[in-house]
């Protein structure tokens, strides 16, 4: 009798325990029915964006009506769009339009450039396309940097552009490029465009310093422009032979995840890219690389 009771209770108990994963999955499905990241390829920038947003739950998931949104592309270099040094202007325009459609009150576009700002904004075509799409395109003003506490391993405090800090939502739109110092420049490195001060000094002990500061200024959403990528002589580029037309877009609300996925475009492994590795180690990532739920779409 006692054995039968035991077996019954045991089987019920096991069944109950067995339900747990099922229950958890249901819970996480309710909490996060969307993938961690979306990878779209095989279309023009606006098409890639549209497909990605659809798979990711729409921009309404991130941008609410009345939000002031900052779209932070890479406008760093005085190069035309086809040399893949700056973010694709058509993608920037499409993102601005999507923000407006989602109800954003104002969309601001800016970047602290490396070459002369007027040249970069103009020749990258980002100023023209973003303005046409309805964004307020501004140049960086030196008096608008606010020093914020970083309390990192190496960095104590750093000036960050106030417009970026004040924004309700931030969309980080890097272009995927080779980089001599950091191997690649993607979402994490693109955030340097809102950093003030002596940015050159960040390149000494780069992985530690970048992740220190990025920890405090992670964006709402990262959309990696891989329509064209720069495979060599980055980040400035200049040689059309280094540009590859990959027609890809990677979207995630976790910048580290987006960067990690983009490594595939360059044939790199995580252990080859120190700053992304360090970002995982310091807890900048929302999702672990082992349990990633990526939705891949081929148009």
């Amino acid at each position, binding site marked *: 009798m006692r054995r039968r009771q035991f077996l019954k209770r045991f089987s019920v108990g096991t069944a109950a325990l067995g339900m747990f994963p099922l229950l958890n999955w249901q819970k996480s499905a309710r909490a996060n029915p969307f993938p961690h990241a979306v990878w779209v390829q095989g279309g023009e920038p606006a098409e890639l964006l549209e497909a990605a947003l659809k798979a990711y739950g729409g921009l309404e998931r991130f941008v609410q009506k009345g939000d002031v949104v900052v779209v932070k592309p890479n406008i760093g270099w005085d190069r035309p769009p086809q040399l893949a040094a700056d973010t694709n202007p058509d993608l920037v325009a499409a993102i601005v339009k999507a923000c407006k459609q989602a109800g954003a009150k104002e969309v601001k576009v800016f970047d602290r450039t*490396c070459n002369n700002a*007027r*040249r970069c904004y103009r020749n990258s075509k980002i100023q023209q396309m973003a303005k046409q799409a309805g964004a307020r395109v501004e140049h960086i003003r030196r*008096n608008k940097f606010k020093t914020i506490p970083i309390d990192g391993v190496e960095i104590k405090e750093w000036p960050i552009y106030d417009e970026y800090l004040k924004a309700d939502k931030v969309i980080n739109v890097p272009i995927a490029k080779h980089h001599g110092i950091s191997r690649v420049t993607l979402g994490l490195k693109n955030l340097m465009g809102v950093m003030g001060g002596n940015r*050159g000094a960040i*390149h000494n002990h780069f992985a530690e310093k970048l992740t220190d500061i990025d920890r405090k200024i992670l964006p709402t959403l990262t959309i990696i422009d891989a329509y064209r990528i720069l495979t060599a*002589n980055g980040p400035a580029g200049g040689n059309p032979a280094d540009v590859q037309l990959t027609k890809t877009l990677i979207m995630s609300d976790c910048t580290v995840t987006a960067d990690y996925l983009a490594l595939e475009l360059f044939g790199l492994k995580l252990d080859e890219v120190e700053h992304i590795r360090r970002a995982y180690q310091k807890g900048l990532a929302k999702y672990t690389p082992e349990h990633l739920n990526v939705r891949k779409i081929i148009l």
Partner: protein
Amino acid sequence: MRTARRISQIVFFLLFVFLFLITRYPYDHGIVTEIGLRFSPLAPVFLFIKDGHLHLILWPAFLILLLTPLFGRFFCGWMCPLGTLLDITDKIIKPPDNRKTGKFEKLRAFKFALLVGLLLLALFSVHLWGYFDPLSIFNRALAILFYPVFTLFAETALLTLSNIPLIEGPAYWLYDYYKIVFMPENQAHYQQVLWIFLFVGLILAAEKLSRRFWCRYLCPAGALLGFLSQFRLFGRVVHSSCPACGICHTECKMGAIPADDIWHTNKVECIQCFSCASTCPEKFKSISYEWTWKPYHSGVDYSRRRFLQTGAASVAALGLLGIGAKNKQAINTQIRPPGSLPEEDFRDRCIRCMECVRVCASNGACLQPSGIQNTLDDLWLPVADMRLGYCEYECNLCTQVCPTEAILPLSLAQKQKTPIGLAHFVKDLCIPYARNEECLVCEEHCPTPEKAIQFEIRPYTDPATGKTRMVKYPYVIKDLCIGCGICVYKCPLQGQAGIVVTIENQQRPRHLS
């Protein structure tokens, strides 16, 4: 007539200022903005002495030179922006009238002495005329003094206003409008501000001694035009109703009406300003302006004795300039704009007008007026300081704006293949070499399609910790480096950079290819 002259002065002044303002990136309006400087009557003469032929690009100056024997020094009275600036200064400073300036009459000869001295020096291949050219002086004053000071105050004021919460909206709009139309570039910062201020300031302050002090006693262009005006055919005629009250003598801008002979005008000095007829009292109205087909002659106040003095002074100057030693250390970093002629020719043709400096300020902002590093004639030549700026890879604008073609116009493709120098690592300072740590900001910014800075990855064992790390050590590839200096500019070291651009490997074209 005086009204017509005043309008002409204002129009030409505004034209010069406008041409100056649009000398900036993107420079896509198709207007040859340096044409203002080609009005200088000195340019054809001195460039003829240099090259032995006439220069067609100086056609505005030829126009002035051809019309002057007929109309006199109309350029000085109707067109010259420096003259207009002096007239404007007169309204503020209130110079003494000609009853008190008799003591300066001896100085009239000085402008001829300066002109002749400059001509003699030019014949012996020393070209210093650019320092004293009135159009170059005006452009220099605009570029280095007036415009930067104006923008400093204007931009600061508008920015401050747009920070006030109540008027933020309209102030912001005003600021944006100002930045688009008036000052799209960044605030310019220059070297040599004090010396240029003293030079221009003294010319303006001299108005306190007499009206148009510069034009009467110093300007070599005025001397040349005056020399050509000795027989001019159109000018002041005094009628018999004149009671010799002396008011026109007192009020004349140039002191060109002798106190003891008010029926004649000193044609070498008169700038056709037509103020005399306006100041002639109503009850007399004895002055009019007419063509006189039997012109009288006004002599140039420059005697043989003075000529010999000038000759002696020129010889002394030539001698002193000629025996100075060459300081190779000083010329090591004398980087010139791309497309500059070889150094001797470059110095001879450059009139220190600051057009190239001005247009560069709206781009990489590396060109500066040079100080005296080696010889006196270093002064105010354009030189690149790569810690203040760098040469933008996609820019060739300095090659497009030189009025005397001391910098030859290069296409963008040509400019990108014309090294202005060569970068060298200063291994005592450069972080990878001095501290065996990573940096590479220089390599990051190198703009050439195949980077002129590459790196070697070598292991380094830190003696303090015993740990080994891989460090990237950068090096310059001479055949790819064009000396643009962005590496020097972006080097994160606080003071001296870990990399420097020297004149090695610079290419100076002799002529357009």
